[in-house]
């Protein structure tokens, strides 16, 4: 299949997409439905936060790489300063990424954060501080991923622009040079 054609109609990585959505959905579903089955807050808290943490790990390390070709992390360099590192595939591979995959990636990220926010508002209205704690933790994990990947995407775009301006400048230079040598 020629990779430069229009994107394929199906998901290119169904298993990864499934996992990407699975843990998010499981955390939300467990939180919402658990009040019907469990009396103990501890179990609700631990399972929900565990699922949210697993989701954070999967999104950051697996589905971010595979679905949109982006990755972010933090390092501390020799001078003791913290440096946020962003890594992205080169332009050709990025263009080759499945559109459906990346659409799913970004939209589920935003929707999950919005859902947690709404649940947080509910628990605030009902003055349930301990449930607010759970929602707070899950929301912060989701928001961290959103911020990280958004910054990574902007960094990738900036690299593209820099590269584009660099190659335009270098082509211009070589054209001018060859023009002068011909003259």
């Amino acid at each position: 299949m020629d990779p430069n054609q229009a994107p394929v109609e199906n998901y290119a990585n169904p298993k990864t997409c499934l996992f990407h959505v699975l843990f998010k959905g499981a955390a939300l579903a467990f939180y919402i439905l658990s009040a019907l089955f469990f009396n103990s807050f501890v179990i609700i808290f631990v399972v929900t936060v565990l699922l949210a943490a697993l989701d954070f790990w999967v999104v950051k390390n697996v589905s971010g790489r595979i679905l949109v070709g982006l990755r972010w992390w933090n390092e501390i360099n020799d001078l003791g300063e913290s440096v946020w590192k962003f890594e992205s595939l080169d332009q050709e591979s990025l263009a080759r990424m499945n559109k459906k995959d990346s659409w799913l990636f970004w939209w589920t990220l935003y929707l999950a954060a919005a859902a947690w926010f709404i649940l947080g508002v509910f628990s605030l209205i009902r003055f349930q501080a301990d449930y607010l704690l759970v929602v707070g933790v899950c929301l912060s994990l989701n928001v961290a991923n959103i911020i990280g990947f958004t910054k990574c995407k902007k960094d990738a775009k900036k690299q593209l622009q820099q590269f584009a301006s660099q190659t335009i400048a270098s082509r211009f230079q070589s054209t001018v040079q060859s023009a002068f040598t011909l003259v």
Partner: protein
Amino acid sequence: MSHNDTVPLYQSSQSDIDEIENMMSEGFQSGPGTVLPARPPSPIRPSIPVTSSPFVQSNLPPLPPPSQKVMPAPVPPPSLPSSAVNFGGSSEGGKTIGGSGFGSPPNTLTEPVWDTVKRDLSRIVSNLKLVVFPNPNREDPGKALRDWDLWGPFFFIVFLGLTLSWSASVKKSEVFAVAFALLAAGAVILTLNVLLLGGHIIFFQSLSLLGYCLFPLDVGAVICMLKDNVILKMVVVCVTLAWSSWAAYPFMSAAVNPRRKALALYPVFLMYVSVGFLIIAID
């Protein structure tokens, strides 16, 4: 076209530009729009390993000594056309060495998932060993927890909360919630305390450190859960409290001005004492 007129904001940006330029110069020779023939064999994924090693050229800021580096050994596969793809190829061999503790290995975008899991797990273990157990690296605290992560602290806090909650005979949920909130908020506040005292510490590094220092208290809580003797509990809690404080001491004290060391360390000690009381008082 030299690379010196662009300011590399991140090392990976510069490396990508290097690599794309190399690819473009190859493209000029072989005609635009053609794909380079011999790519390094990628794992079965649609994405292709092209991000080259950030630790390649000499125009990078000073690097740590080569003994710590994950630098791919100089084994250039002769069949690859461009030098950029060469780095991609040779760093594939190097990418699984990532557990050396310096940071993520160069080409992490296409590693198999199992490698990522192993790398994270080994990082947790190495951080734990670094912080809690005696080892030569404690002399240089800033360098020691360079590779911070929050998974270890997360597990330890939840485990401590669960243990306390299990030991409690009534109000288990409240105990857990209080323990979790106390530990999490306590870590954040202690970090802010150090920062406000004018100390030099990275926020997440400090959170990570305080979380790892909970490990001895976890052990103490488990022992107290198993045996219900009050005297034993007090002894165990004192020992583990001292161990936790000893673990946290070099990192916290190195971060602040020597005259303010006590101001930074006293709240840490206080928090561990309060957790110790929680452990003793639960029945």
